[in-house]
């Protein structure tokens, strides 16, 4: 294992990202645009529920971070599919970089993207939307780290399972919306129907939302959500390990 080659692959993906920043628009720009529109509605919902100090940011910021965070799964997967589309995948495989170095290198850029999203969303919300973290920023970061690991591992698993870019896009888009719904990211968890609330703990996004909310409201530890997210990450990693074939030929975007 050479960290130099891992870094080379990560740098190459960062160069590609820098050349085409559209990849991070859904991840970072869209939630920033949507949040101001939704915050008043969530503030009203919190007030109606008796939380008169709430600003609405406590729901809308983690909600949008979780919902749009799923684009990171697609970005991770895209970094593999585009190598196939550009016919560079076999060149990469025939290079000095080994399979583990390629995989690790390809995980770095999505983690950087997540970090930027996390800092911008929570940072700007703290400055502009009255988001008050009453618990701990450290706990908030711990939840963010666990969620990022889950998203990137799931991105590799999606690549392993899907043969075409369209399959991956459809899988991630549908999965993101369904999971956001069950997680209570689109509407407060308390407003979900009972059957949906019963299913929610089976959904990774639910634990991300719970973790963020525990850290923001304070009073409850984030250990369980973090462990749950790491457990789901392990599941994704196992799927990736079982199904990822470097010799598979994938069809990129047409």
């Amino acid at each position, binding site marked *: 294992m050479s960290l130099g080659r891992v870094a080379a692959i990560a740098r190459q993906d960062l*160069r590609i990202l820098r050349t085409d920043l559209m990849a991070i628009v859904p991840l970072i720009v869209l939630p920033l645009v949507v949040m101001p529109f939704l915050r008043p509605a969530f503030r009203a919902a919190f007030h109606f529920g008796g939380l008169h100090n709430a600003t609405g940011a406590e729901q809308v910021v983690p909600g949008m971070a979780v919902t749009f965070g799923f684009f990171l799964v697609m970005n991770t997967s895209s970094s593999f599919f585009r190598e196939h589309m550009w016919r*560079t995948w076999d060149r990469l495989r025939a290079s000095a970089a080994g399979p583990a170095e390629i995989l690790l290198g390809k995980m770095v850029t999505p983690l950087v993207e997540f970090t930027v999203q996390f800092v911008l969303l929570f940072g700007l919300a703290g400055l502009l939307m009255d988001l008050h973290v009453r618990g701990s920023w450290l706990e908030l970061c711990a939840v963010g780290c666990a969620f990022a690991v889950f998203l990137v591992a799931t991105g590799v698993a999606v690549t392993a399972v899907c043969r075409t870019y369209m399959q991956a896009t459809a899988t991630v888009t549908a999965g993101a919306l369904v999971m956001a719904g069950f997680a209570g990211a689109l509407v407060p968890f308390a407003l979900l129907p009972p059957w949906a609330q019963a299913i929610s703990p089976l959904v990774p996004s639910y634990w991300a939302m719970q973790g963020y909310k525990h850290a923001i409201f304070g009073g409850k530890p984030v250990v369980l959500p973090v462990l749950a997210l790491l457990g789901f990450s392990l599941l994704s990693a196992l799927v990736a390990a079982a199904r990822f074939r470097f010799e598979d030929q994938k069809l990129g975007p047409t």
Partner: protein
Amino acid sequence: MTLDFPWARCIPTLTAVLKLRGVHKSYETVKALDGVDLDVDQGEIVALLGPNGAGKSTLVSVIAGLCKPDRGEVRLNGIDIRANPGLARRQLGLSPQETGIYPILSVRDNLRFFGELAGLRKRDLERRIEEVAAAFSLRGLLDRQGRKLSGGEARRLHTAMIALQRPPLLLLDEVTAGVDVQSRKQLLDLVGSLAGRGSAVLYSTHYLHEIEALGAQRVAILLEGRVVTAGSIPDLVGAFGGSFVELRFDRRPAGLDLPAGTVNVGENVLRVPAEDSAAVTAAGLVGRLDSSGATLREIKLLQPSLESVFLSVTAGTANGGPP
């Protein structure tokens, strides 16, 4: 051309950079490679020739570590690719058949990436990029995006990306596919220069005339997954290069008594092996055509050459025509 290969100076005698012994590879019921034996020495260009489906691309993939052989031995500079795939991969540079570059990155960044993967850093890397860019006529294009290159420029970049690594073995699969005459000549000259500097080159191609232009020391003809013959061009021409007469008719001739070894190589086109000289055989054939009911449209005399070697060796196979 100012490329230098420091590792080549450390190898005192001519040695097999690539050694294949009994390499087998099957896909479900299809035998793609059926016991391939082949050596490529330091500084040697070996042309790999074969009809479509002969197994050339599979062989290149196996050597590059892109797919595993079912059986047999593949050694790069003595390193077994199964026992130590990472170290073995560092001995080779692959230029696949289809152009593979990063279209949204500049020529410089395309080169830089493969240089970084080869372990080059900072000043060494930048110097090497400049050298390779000069050698491949890419210096004025270094800041141009890959997608804005012409076909020939993209192909030069495609090959330059491995020349930058200066590997002991260059695996070149149809590197001139789809490029104009000028770029083709330039690429062939560069491949020759790379071999002259010490790289072993395995050059897979469909173009027979390229092999002579390239100055390949040996030709290996792959047929149905096996190397059926290998040797220098003069040796092969001496052993297999008979003359042929090629006849094109307006319709399929009937009742014509033709010598053994005659093959149909196209619609109403027959290729007849010459027993002595092609001209004498042609004269004899023309004299017997009246009764065939077909009109002769064209007659060609094919003298002993790499093409006639190829035709002799591949005669009788499903892809017996020229590749």
